[in-house]
């Protein structure tokens, strides 16, 4: 594990951490994570993945930084810049030892599978249910480990998927059609940031192989009440994408009607 002197100093607190150590750090250095969405969840997730030394970080977002994003999307500062580019610029300044790849496109049913290729782990940091279910279905069909995050208002939730274990649809079934957006009900930056940090933690644990992932468990955080709930759940045999009689076997754009931004 050849670390430069600068890297050895930078990661020294990881080296002494039993959950990571020098061997775990070299795993992080050789790992790749795709972050889909560089908004509120993505901002904190990307920041901590980069600081932790994840070697290759893909960042997909087609949207441009808007002033109304700045209460929570803490890695952005230049209004009008593409968010994937803005995030990649931030990463290079924060940690020049990692590579950030900006993917300036909307991920859709047609292109998501090819974008997932070559990454060890995926973070769903998208900002609406249609895209979250698209990411779930793509990861299930490709057997790609990923971590789901969602937030709005002062609340958020997180779970991790591994192949052959429960997926988002085992708990939620179909895409909710009545969900308000952050623009409609507002969002507290520190809440969404916390969920993004937890997503980064899941990615790091997956890569180094330490601890217990949030598999078959969903954590819900209520920031106002300062309350965490944990739901334990198993695979649903009627799950539309991973159940015995699955209906979804390929990605069809008609199933993720746009609305599909992140």
């Amino acid at each position, binding site marked *: 594990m050849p670390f430069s002197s600068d890297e050895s100093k930078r990661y020294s607190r990881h080296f002494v951490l039993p959950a990571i150590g020098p061997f775990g750090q070299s795993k992080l250095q050789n790992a790749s994570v795709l972050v889909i*969405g560089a*908004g*509120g*969840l*993505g901002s904190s997730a990307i920041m901590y993945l980069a600081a932790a030394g994840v070697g290759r970080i893909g960042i997909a977002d087609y949207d441009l930084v808007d002033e109304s994003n700045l209460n929570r999307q803490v890695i952005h500062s230049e209004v009008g810049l593409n968010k994937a580019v803005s995030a990649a610029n931030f990463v290079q300044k924060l940690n020049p030892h990692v590579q950030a790849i900006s993917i300036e496109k909307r991920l859709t049913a047609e292109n998501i599978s090819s974008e997932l290729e070559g990454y060890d782990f995926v973070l*769903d*940091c*998208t*900002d*609406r*249910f249609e895209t*979250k279910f698209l990411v779930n279905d793509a990861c299930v069909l490709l057997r790609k480990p990923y971590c789901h*995050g*969602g*937030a*709005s*208002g002062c*609340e*958020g*939730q997180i779970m991790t998927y591994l192949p052959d274990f429960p997926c988002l649809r085992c*708990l*939620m*079934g*179909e895409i*909710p*059609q*009545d*969900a308000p*957006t*952050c623009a409609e009900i507002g*969002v507290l930056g520190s809440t*969404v940031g916390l969920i993004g940090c937890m997503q980064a933690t899941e990615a790091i644990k997956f890569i180094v192989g330490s601890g217990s992932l949030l598999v078959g468990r*969903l954590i*819900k955080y209520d920031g106002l009440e300062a*309350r965490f*709930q944990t*739901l*334990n*759940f*198993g695979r649903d045999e009627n799950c539309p994408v991973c159940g015995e009689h699955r209906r979804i076997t390929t990605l069809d754009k008609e199933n993720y009607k746009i609305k599909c931004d*992140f």
Partner: protein
Amino acid sequence: MVKINGKEEDAVGKTVKEFLLEANYSLSRVAVELNGAILPKADYDRKFADGDIVEIVGFVGGG
């Protein structure tokens, strides 16, 4: 009494669905854990019994 999300509620005899609708949960964005196990949506007509421990999780879709 029924313990719902950590609070004692006077909900004995009420169905899960009735409680969810009164509390303004969206049925398409919710999961209910009853006495430690996920309650299938098809069973939301079940009535709460005294001593039930319930966790209701409403999902959020922003990011």
